[in-house]
């Protein structure tokens, strides 16, 4: 197997997801079958081929450093589950 239980646990930590003990084998199996399919990309030699990150090979455009938007602070804060005045509220991080 290319992906085992231990790897599923590690990936879940990196992805900020939790995996229950009951589901872990099924997830390992499904990820393993996906990785097996993905592995076909190794059938072709790609030495000296430049990776293609964007279909138009576009480069990141820069714009003038001027303000283009008005403040939307109140509206954006109102979308949060918990906010107080100008802050998002989260569980205590530092005692």
């Amino acid at each position, binding site marked *: 197997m290319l992906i085992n239980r231990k790897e599923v646990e590690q*990936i879940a930590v990196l*992805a900020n997801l939790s995996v229950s003990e009951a589901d872990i084998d099924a997830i390992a199996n499904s990820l393993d079958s996906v990785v097996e399919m993905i592995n076909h990309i190794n059938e072709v030699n*790609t030495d000296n081929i430049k990776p293609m990150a964007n279909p138009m090979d576009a480069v990141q455009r820069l*714009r003038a450093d001027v303000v283009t938007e008005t403040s939307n602070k109140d509206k954006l804060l109102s979308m949060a589950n918990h906010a107080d005045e100008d802050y998002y509220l989260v569980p*205590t991080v530092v005692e």
Partner: protein
Amino acid sequence: MKFKGIKQISQALHSKDISVQELHDIYANRQKQSAKQLNCLINRTPQLAQQQIVAAQALIDSHQGSILTGIPLVHKDLFCTKDINTTCGSRMLENFVAPYDATIVDNLNAVGMVTLAKANMDEFAMGSSNENSYFGAVKNPWDLSRVSGGSSGGSAAVVAAGLAPIATGSDTGGSIRQPAALCGITGIKPSYGRASRYGMVAFASSLDQAGVLARSAEDCAYVLSQMCGYDAKDSTSAQVDKEDFSQNLQQSIKRMKVGIIREWMDGLSAGIKAVTEQAIQKLQDLGAELVEVELPTAHLAVSAYYVIAPAECSSNLSRFDGIRYGHQCQNPKDLNDLYVRSRTEGFGEEVKRRIMVGTWALSTGFYDAYYLKAQKIRRLIAEDFNQAFAQVDIIAAPVSPEVAFKFNAKKDPVSMYQEDIYTVPSSLAGLPCMSIPIGMVDNLPVGLQLIGHNLQESVLLNIAHQYQQDTNWHSQVAEGYHE
């Protein structure tokens, strides 16, 4: 009053045979009758529609309207609509109210189109059957026991059932073309960069493109022309002039060179192959010349796509932290618990699978071997297309290896991913492509994929329109949904 397409509807509006309100009511009533049964809508937008009806009628009355003014449409629920729920088919965004309009929504609002509803979709546009929606699967109007395709399955079912003449969609690896094919309608994804991604919830940013689903290529052309255009708010927006994609519709396709990929044709089941060959024969009858072309690396497209798309998905979906917006778990014990439980509860199984595949492909030790390797395959596929387009004007190919399948028929992810075998190559290359209905197999619709070279949307729409001038498949309607 029987309508045929946007042009006829628009003429009726402008000659005052019908008001914008009356037109709206026809479709709103049809939605009331059938939307629940098909489960194709997530939210209806009656208040917004009322405001837009008044504005559209005023434009028409003052002779300032365009062909799209007053035409009702439904938006796929991943396009942000200001002050209206935008769920992306996910529990994560079940209560998310967008603070602004997506640019493509803005562009269509600007000419007075009337928004009726938001369409159901696979969660975060990940899926080929719409079975991944938090709000339940969409049913195919041609057979309620079968899938509508995905991820724009709600949009496709809306148009196929006549609940709106137009629906917007998005296509990352086939999400407009495959549901259009499975529901027997026309759908187009423009070249990467043509339509702004601003306000379209991101899945895989180097692949995602907005597009249109409608009955005919002609209707797609009108809407796509208005939807596309350079947008400074999207850093990958193509800096090309706005185009009227309807201008070449009437041109003859005599001597147009149509590429055929023999290997793809030979891989089809007998029924779909026969229908596809008939459609290609029709193009030949209309004067097109057939040329066999090869895409030697395209057989690796699904593998490369399922590295690149999940990698970009894992990066894009890391924004969902349960704090600023989106689902938040109850009583988190600390900050990490808040992140992990909010995400684990908010995302469905397939979305979590893709986040995990992408996280794995981008993790230390695998980045070069998978992510960069897949991007190199992507270039080889794009180069294959460049060579093919040195010989032909367009490529005609299958859309899907099969017709609409039964619910729960594909439980393992890899068999579902194989649905995308004919659609992901052109997605990786960023090319414009569309699906047009060309016939039936087992009383279910089959589509033909037309792939164009970069920025050649008007060539695609020209050949599709000429085909539809000579055939009737695009006006076929499933039993029970006649207008």
